[in-house]
């Protein structure tokens, strides 16, 4: 994600990748040797043909005994090679799956430990993609490309060595004649890649247009536009197919070019071999064996061009994955943590600035500028302000989900940067605006705060917040499934679960990001009741969206465009006639008409 990483070379990326996933290196040398032995299985036939022709089919007759002995040796060698190949493939598969697994786990952990500033909405998708599709390009690579490198690479190496050992002159002839193939393939390959890129983007276009026919079904009927929409899809589909056919045609020439080069190479080898004749020490068997070897040597080359492309994709995926691991993790643990004092804790905010991290060079406007306030232990404070005033961010800084870009936040007189994370989480708890519930039961979601509590203990915490009557309305009580993202519960009920969850931590400081969504009257009453019980004796900071909350608080902090503009009691601020007074006025007006609307409906 940060720029310099994109400039890592392929070699550098692979090197760093191997360091990030050391399982790849473990025992790799042995895997390579086994693959080499496995490749041996594929040169057994050419060598056997050569040996049989030179030693078995002599002019004095066919020596069946010698051929049989050679065949037995060959069968043994093939068996060993088959076993070695299987073992090499299995080892590569194991190690790569192991490596991908540990890479995924490292990513999970690292991403979860990133500052909340790195978890902005627009980045979330990218982070998910790193752990899924990017790691998946690596998985695909190991399943096909990596395997090809291992098996075909060792095969070509071995075949080339055997060819050189038989007759270096013929080997050089073969390599020289075959060499231009590499250049041709690379040229065609680059065209092919572009052709497929175009095809894929056109394919995406077809999918978009098909989905329009479905999503726009009503409009289509209301405007008799069925033919028009269908034609659009057909045109797009035709364009897509044309480009796929073009790409396929290029590919069709790519593959048999190996074929054409092999006949030239074999002809050259036979021609030169025949020209030199037996006088050069070459035998008939060696020449025939050489013909077999030449075919073997050229077989994998066409496939290699595909493998190269896949390798590039995998390296790009690896680069992105490593990029995430390069982002420094969120608020770092202090090296020498200071303990928090026991009992209630006050909160001090001292000249705090904050900006979200940017993606490019553009300067993101600061969210908070020079905010200072001291909140005494046990005080009930409401923070208010318009959308974008920075009040949610201020709450996040107090919970140290991110560190301020300048200034300090302290609790109980200790700067947050000196408080151990575990200590902080035990003493400061956030109830977010849209509480997030994981798929599972209510009990499982509550356990998230304190994993080891028994069901009975969980139930008693519900009683403590006076929510027994609510629990009894649920079909399976505390075992009720909440569904994906808590979708089976209403917004208000999700907030109730979040409050109970927060109470389990028994924090000294409670941060409450008030919900904006409307809640039915009964749940509203339950929420207020539970909240009152929960807030008792704790320092409570409410990011308030309803000014009724502010009206009840001991103190109101008013943020405007990232600055703290007013600070005082509700009554004092209303009298002062500033920002808060204006907000209050329009709020009163809107709620009274909303009340009338409710009555009318």
């Amino acid at each position, binding site marked *: 994600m940060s720029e310099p990483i994109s400039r890592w070379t392929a070699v550098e990326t692979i090197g760093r990748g191997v360091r990030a996933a050391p399982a790849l290196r473990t025992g790799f040398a042995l895997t390579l040797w086994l693959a080499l032995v496995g490749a041996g299985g594929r040169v057994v036939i050419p060598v056997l043909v050569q040996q*049989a022709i030179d030693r078995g*089919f002599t002019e004095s007759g*066919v020596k069946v005994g010698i*051929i*049989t002995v050679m*065949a037995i040796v060959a069968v043994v060698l093939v*068996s060993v090679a088959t*076993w070695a*190949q*299987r073992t090499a*493939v*299995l080892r590569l598969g194991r190690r790569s799956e192991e490596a991908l697994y540990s890479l*995924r*786990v490292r990513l*999970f952990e690292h991403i*979860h430990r990133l500052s909340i500033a790195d*978890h902005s909405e627009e980045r*979330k998708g990218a982070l998910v993609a790193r*752990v899924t599709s990017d790691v998946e390009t690596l998985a695909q690579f190991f399943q096909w490309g990596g395997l*090809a490198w291992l*098996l075909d690479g060792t095969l070509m190496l071995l075949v080339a060595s055997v060819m050189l050992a038989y007759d270096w002159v013929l080997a050089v002839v073969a390599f020289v004649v075959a060499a231009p193939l590499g250049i041709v393939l690379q040229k065609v390959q680059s065209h092919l890649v572009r052709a497929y890129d175009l095809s894929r983007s056109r394919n995406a276009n077809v999918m978009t*247009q098909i989905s*329009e026919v*479905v999503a726009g*079904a*009503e409009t289509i*009927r209301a405007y008799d*536009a069925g033919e028009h929409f*269908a*034609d659009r899809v*057909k045109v797009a*589909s035709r364009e897509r*197919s044309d480009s796929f*056919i073009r790409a*396929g045609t290029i590919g*069709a020439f790519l*593959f*048999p070019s190996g*074929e*054409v080069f092999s*006949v030239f190479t074999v002809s050259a080898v036979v*021609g030169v071999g*025949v020209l030199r*004749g037996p006088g050069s020490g070459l035998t008939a068997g060696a020449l*025939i064996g050489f013909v077999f070897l030449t075919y073997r040597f050229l077989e994998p080359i066409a496939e290699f061009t595909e493998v190269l492309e896949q390798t590039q994709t995998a390296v790009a995926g690896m680069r992105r994955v490593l990029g995430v691991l390069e982002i420094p993790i969120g608020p770092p643990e202090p090296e020498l943590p200071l303990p928090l004092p026991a009992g209630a804790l006050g909160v001090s905010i001292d000249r705090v600035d904050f900006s979200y991290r940017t993606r490019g060079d553009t300067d993101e406007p600061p969210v908070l500028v020079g905010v200072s306030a001291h909140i005494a232990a046990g005080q009930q404070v409401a923070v*208010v302000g*318009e959308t974008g005033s920075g009040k949610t961010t201020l709450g996040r800084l107090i919970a140290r989900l991110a560190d301020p870009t300048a200034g300090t936040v302290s609790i109980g007189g200790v700067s947050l940067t000196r408080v151990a994370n575990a200590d902080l989480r035990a003493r400061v708890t956030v109830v977010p605006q849209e509480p997030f519930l*994981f798929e599972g039961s209510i009990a499982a979601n509550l356990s998230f705060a304190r994993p080891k509590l028994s069901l009975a203990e969980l139930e008693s915490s519900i009683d403590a917040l006076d929510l027994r009557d609510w629990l009894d309305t649920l079909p399976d009580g505390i075992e009720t499934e909440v569904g994906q*993202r808590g979708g089976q519960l209403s917004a208000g009920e999700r907030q109730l679960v979040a409050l109970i*969850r927060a109470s389990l*931590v028994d924090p000294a400081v409670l941060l409450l990001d008030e919900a*904006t969504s409307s809640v039915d009257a009964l749940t509203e009453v339950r929420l207020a009741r539970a909240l009152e019980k929960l807030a008792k004796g704790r320092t409570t900071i409410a990011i308030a*969206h309803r000014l009724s909350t502010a009206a009840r608080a001991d103190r109101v902090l008013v943020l405007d465009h990232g600055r703290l503009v007013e600070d005082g009691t509700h009554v004092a601020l209303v009298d002062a006639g500033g920002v808060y007074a204006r907000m209050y006025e*329009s*709020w009163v007006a*809107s709620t009274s*008409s909303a009340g009338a609307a409710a*009555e*009318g*409906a």
Partner: protein
Amino acid sequence: MTPDPHISWSHGAFLLVEHERMGDGTIIPEAGGRLRQAFRLVRALVRHQKRTFFTAVSGAAVFAACTVLSAVVVRMITDEVIDPRFRQGSVAASKVLIVLGALILLGFVRAAGVVVRRTWAWRTMWRVVDSLSGEVVDQLAQQPVPWHRTQSTGDLITRAGVDAEAATAVLSPLPFASGVVVLVGLSSVLLLVTDLWLGLAAVAVFPVVIIVTLRYQKRVDSFYDAAQNELGRLSAAVHESFDGVSVVKSFGAEGRETERLAVIASRLREARLSAVRLRSTFEALLDGLPTVVNILLLVGGAYRVRSGAMTVGELTSFIYLFTLLVFPLRIIGYALSEVPHSLAGWNRIRSLLDQPVAPDPSLTLARSPDRSVVLNDVHFSHDGEREVLTGVNAHIEGGCTTAVVGATGSGKTTLLHIIAGLMPVGAGSVAVPDGGVRLVFQEPFLLAGSVRENVALGADIGTDAIEAALAVAEASFVHDLPDGLNTEVGERGVGLSGGQRQRLALARALVRQPAVLLLDDTTSSLDPTTEAKVLANLKSVLVRTTVIAVASRPSTIALADDVLFLDEGRVVAHGRHDELLSTVPAYRRLIEAFEHDRAALDAAAATPVGVEP
């Protein structure tokens, strides 16, 4: 690894051509053998691409013939070039040139066969994809709204996209596979002619390779499918976990979440490992076993050469040919293993295409003699149980503007959809005038295309008419867009606000000069000033048009000539706004509620205490 790089490339992303409606319907997977099913499927697919398909197959046949002939050339190289030179001391240069010339020529013809096969196989597949997705899209575009409401959006999109490709995936390896059949036939003949007994031994191996590959492919596919499912689960869990990152952090649960995800990731690893284990064994065996057979053939051959039944060259070409065959043989197994996937895709598509087009709901409408809209005891229910409209009666005067007012769920939108002919009249009758009814939806749908295309929607409408409609709809913002009327909007184009989209949608209706214009809260996203302008324009331009507008802004309602007050699916009152205000208490209460609602929203907009992003 994969038998053919292009097959590995997309494992199901290939296909097709002209292909009309076929009456032969779905193919029952268990009926007949796999080969029979494959045959029926392919026949159905290539019906209108026969020539392309058979060109590909003949390319494959040329390839097969040349492969067999190249074995003959290898025998000639051994017996007539190398052997004389190395054993008898010399060979005629002309002989060498002829044999090598034949080798090169064969190489070229064989390569040409491959090019023809691959090009036309690919062409066949994509042309069939074209026609299959075309058929699906035609079906989607023809089916009326009630049919669409019963379908899952995702499923329909899958039919035209993924399933069309899956159905045709079998076409890509098929010409090669048929070429291999030719190859196996010709080789068998050559092998048997060269030496009957050795030939029989070699030929016996062919079916073994095919069957082993087929079984292997089936099993390994099931492992990969399982791994794919695990990957889906992992992605879902990662999504959820990263979405909930603030909760995770608040409770210091980073470690626990990592462990939870690690467990899911380890299941993916295990699923993949099962596939790797199977693959490593089978791939090695499929390499090793034919080699062992080849060695045995050599030993057997040695005896035959000794007895004079064959020459060294014949034995060499025998072994060469066998080496060449093993790999293509696997293609047959591979192609057959594609059949179940393709069949499943094909059957899903057929099940959609074989559905008759549901009756057009607009056929349930009657014609009114003048420009009025007459509703007579109209009933409607979506599910056959709870009625949304329970006996609506109204005579809406031609050329008037009528506001339809009611609380949420009172049936306003459904009523408009019925008048527009999108939903059928359940019971009772609805009469509309000739000359077209156009509905402007509350949530306008824009397609990915230019402003012009979005307004015209394929109708032949000139620039002047479009400009005029845009002017009435107060959509002059279009002229400020980078390319004016030709600016791309929708999915990948310029982002438009809700109000801008509504005005384009309004222009879309106006440009068609309908006899009846239906507005479903169409001006709800406009600011009050713009809304007032739009409504004034409509009044002055649409003198003869009957306008029926669902409205919730008191200012909008006040502009109507008439108000139709709906409550729980029936007309409670029909009359002038001020009349209803003074005579119908429920109406007055609703209007007051709307007013307060609006005031609250406007206040919130002016001083948003509300939603923090």
